[in-house]
């Protein structure tokens, strides 16, 4: 029992959990965009759910408990349901393999490589201000900040949601006039 407590306090368990969740996130992310088994968008959506759930595991490891819950409720619960619903509405046939244009493929890989190298370069100059962070992202402190310093953005976001709702209703009408 004591050895288990020591193991938890030394941070070895959270380190192992980080590698597990990171590997799961990246693996499912790869399966979202290139799935060797199926070209069906439904499989992509299912792997996106797995990516998001393992990412909320990473959020828990970063002590952002509220955001981890929001991530699962909003993304896995609402956004992905919307995706699956639209896939059902569109009634897509199994996508036939079309030839990827060679020129486009090369240019895409070059663009991604350029952005990757820029990111890696800028990451080398980043230093964390504390090695032993104490910050807790619990609901109370986050809500306090949201309703003191960030009241105006909070209200603006509510207007944005209203506008988006009206826009969606207008767009999905049968006849636009």
């Amino acid at each position, binding site marked *: 029992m004591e050895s288990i407590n020591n193991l938890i306090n030394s941070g070895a368990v959270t380190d192992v959990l980080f590698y597990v969740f990171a590997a799961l996130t*990246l693996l499912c992310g790869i399966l979202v965009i290139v799935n060797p088994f199926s070209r069906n968008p439904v499989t992509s959506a299912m792997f996106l759910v797995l990516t998001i759930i393992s990412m909320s595991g990473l959020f828990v490891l970063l002590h952002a408990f509220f955001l981890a819950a929001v991530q699962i409720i909003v993304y896995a619960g609402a956004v992905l349901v919307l995706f699956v619903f639209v896939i059902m509405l569109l009634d897509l046939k199994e996508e036939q393999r079309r030839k990827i244009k060679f020129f486009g493929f090369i240019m895409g890989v070059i663009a991604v490589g350029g952005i990757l190298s820029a990111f890696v370069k800028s990451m080398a100059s*980043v230093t964390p201000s504390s090695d032993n962070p104490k910050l807790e992202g619990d609901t109370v402190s986050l809500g306090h900040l949201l309703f003191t310093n960030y009241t105006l953005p909070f209200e603006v976001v509510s207007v944005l949601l209203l506008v988006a709702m009206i826009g969606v209703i207008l767009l999905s009408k049968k006849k636009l006039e």
Partner: protein
Amino acid sequence: MQVGLHHYLTVSILLFCLGLLGVILRRNLLVIYMSLELMLNAANLALVSFSRFNDKLDGQVLVFFIITVAAAEVAVGLALIVALFRKRQSAHVEDLTSMKL
């Protein structure tokens, strides 16, 4: 070696590049949209880890707003895709070339 800021940033960068690759290479509108969500999530992960390792909660508030805006964006975007599909009977970017000169 203890897991620190750089580990999380590496995961975030790789996930962002994966999403970008998906946006560029895939031809299905819905899968392109899912790759966009992947990129947004990668940015969220970077923001949360920055906020954790700099002892400031503001990054997490920003992530909260990003999640809200992303939900609104997905709703509008999917409505656009449905409207487009009704007109063209296709969700394939190569079939949507009427704006081409």
